[in-house]
């Protein structure tokens, strides 16, 4: 048997084990202790798990994460698709669309948040300034929980829609020209072409984009943490942020590990569900 392939994978496996497998095992061990940051750890059994199911902050932050995911995922998918359809038209300025739609995705999160926190400023921020000039009232973009979540989602869509845009654009270019030409000869309108040819042929991409986006949205942390600023906004805190706070600002590594594992189980369930759904489809074909 040819073992040479194995040695090519070794560097990856070493890193994978050191930074993923080993920490996961350590985390599982820590979740049944009262480990703090100074290394002391005593076995507490399921106490952390029992506590987290009683902890309202776990449920509220999980709720914020789910709301974020449920609202932002369709928005990102639809905006990405719309941008891809627009940029795929054979117009002279399409290079500009491609650049403009994808550029935000290349920005680091800190830059994105910096830009948007200035846009959202009360009083002199670009958006509120515009609203006042138009004779409309100011909006406290980050001052109430509901608005803050909306603002975070708007920022996220602007930032990451470029990724689904890219996937859709690539998929659109895979669709053979002839299908459109033939249907045009048969008298199909552009809208019929979109409904009957483009969207059905994108179905695999829809799946891919939606799964990637759901997983990315569930892990949301950076933009919420940064946009909430000093002290944070408890009304938009995500579950990952709560895990971070429990472990690193409240020094409860054991408890944070337990929450991580519950959240991990949730994500694994989502992944498994998707696997079952797509596997079923594959068998039918």
């Amino acid at each position, binding site marked *: 048997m040819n073992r040479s392939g194995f040695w090519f994978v070794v560097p990856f496996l070493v890193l994978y084990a050191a930074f993923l497998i080993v920490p996961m095992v350590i985390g599982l061990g820590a979740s049944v202790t009262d480990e703090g940051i*100074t290394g002391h750890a005593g076995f507490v059994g399921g106490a952390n798990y029992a506590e987290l199911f009683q902890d309202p902050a776990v449920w509220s932050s999980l709720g914020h994460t789910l709301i974020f995911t449920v609202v932002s995922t369709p928005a990102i998918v639809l905006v990405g698709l719309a941008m891809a359809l627009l940029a795929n038209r054979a117009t002279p300025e399409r290079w500009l669309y491609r650049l403009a739609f994808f550029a935000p995705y290349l920005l680091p999160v800190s830059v994105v948040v910096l830009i948007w926190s200035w846009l959202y400023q*009360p009083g002199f921020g670009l958006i509120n300034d515009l609203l006042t000039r138009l004779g409309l009232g100011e909006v406290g973009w980050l001052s109430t929980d509901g608005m803050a979540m909306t603002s975070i989602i708007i920022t996220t869509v602007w930032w990451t829609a470029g990724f689904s845009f890219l996937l859709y654009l690539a998929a659109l270019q895979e669709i053979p020209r002839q299908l459109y030409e033939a249907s045009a000869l048969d008298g199909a309108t552009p809208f019929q072409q979109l409904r009957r040819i483009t969207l059905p042929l994108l179905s695999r991409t829809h799946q891919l984009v939606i799964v990637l986006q759901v997983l990315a949205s569930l892990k949301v942390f950076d933009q919420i943490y940064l946009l909430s600023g000093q002290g944070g*906004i*408890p009304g938009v805190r995500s579950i990952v942020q709560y895990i971070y706070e429990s472990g690193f*600002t409240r020094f409860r590594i054991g408890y944070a590990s337990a929450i991580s594992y519950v959240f991990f189980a949730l994500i694994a369930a989502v992944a498994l569900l998707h696997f079952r759904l797509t596997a079923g489809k594959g068998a039918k074909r």
Partner: protein
Amino acid sequence: MNRRTFILAGMAVATATGAGAACSGPTGLAYWNLFSGGDGSRMTEMVGAIGTRLDAVTLAWGTPYYTKLAMAAAGGRAPDLAILHLSRLPGFAPLGLLDPFDDDLLVAHGLTPDRFPQAVWNRARHNGRTYAVPLDTHPLVLFYNTELCGKAGLLQDGKLKPIRGERQLLDAFGKAGLALAAARDVNPWRLFWTLYRQQDGQGLLDDAKALTALRLLQKIGATARFTDNNAAVALFGSGQAGFFWNGEWELPTFQEQHTPFDVAPFPQIYDRPAVHADSHSFVLPHQRDRDPERTAQTVAAIAELVGQSLTWARGGHIPAYQPVATSSAYLNLLPQANYRSAAAEAELDPPVWFAGAASDLQSSAGATIGAVLGGTMSPEAALGDLKATVMRLKNTPSPS
């Protein structure tokens, strides 16, 4: 390798070697602090003025700073010297994140208890050992606009007439206008704690006294415009409010804006003078292999820095080091010296692990009390909320 990765890799190598070069020179003592803006430049000035070489690193204020400091100390390779809000000591010292000072070493450098206000020195001790050397006391104060308050007839010989009791306070705020940070800020907690401790409220929480304080805050909120701190500073700085209720650290802003203002100590509303305060203090974060020689140098540097605290006082803070606080140079520093009495009345956060600057208690309670000031929550409902918060924090196992 495409061009982009090539450039990125080149930059990474350059940064790595650059950082390596910075580390290999003769090193001073590593010193972490959380001072930016005016406080940052005054601290840089003090560090430059002393003989001991300190390599100062400034980190973002608040939770990020304390997270990083705790992580560094937990790893045992912390900086030689760091700033800590004294109110955070109960969350740090019992966990072994700080190393105690050697009392003989402190005495040798003139850092003795009699040279610091008792209110803060007591809080620098844990289990009979000294864990912190206070640099300042920074209390809440009452800023007032001399023109607006003059027109409202609230001045006497150019100074604010003493305000005593709820009615006089509300009357004064009603006449001259109050700017107050109430939204998304810990300021409401500080106001509450002041009013609670003025009634000699004990522990967390005496229902009747807490309710009295909350009811007053509700009435005060009705006289003030509900804003965040930036807006409140702007309102007072531009002469649109006669009073501004916050910490003395906002003082340089108004001096720069040439606002006609003066500062009074926080008025005594109830039975005893008391005001929420905190203290920036010097600590030795835990090092696994502590070098006695470097530690001695660190203590020498602390003695030199507190000796420079007249520079620090320009930012509004009251020097903790009494040889400076009682010097004529400080007594002539106005308006700072006007509220120096506050150092003796300083009420830090309760000495529990979940309290202190940028803590859970401050942000949770701040949000509740902010809602009372904003008129969206009744004092009775807020009391229930506060008690629930305290109960939740008390029931959380303290970290180890």
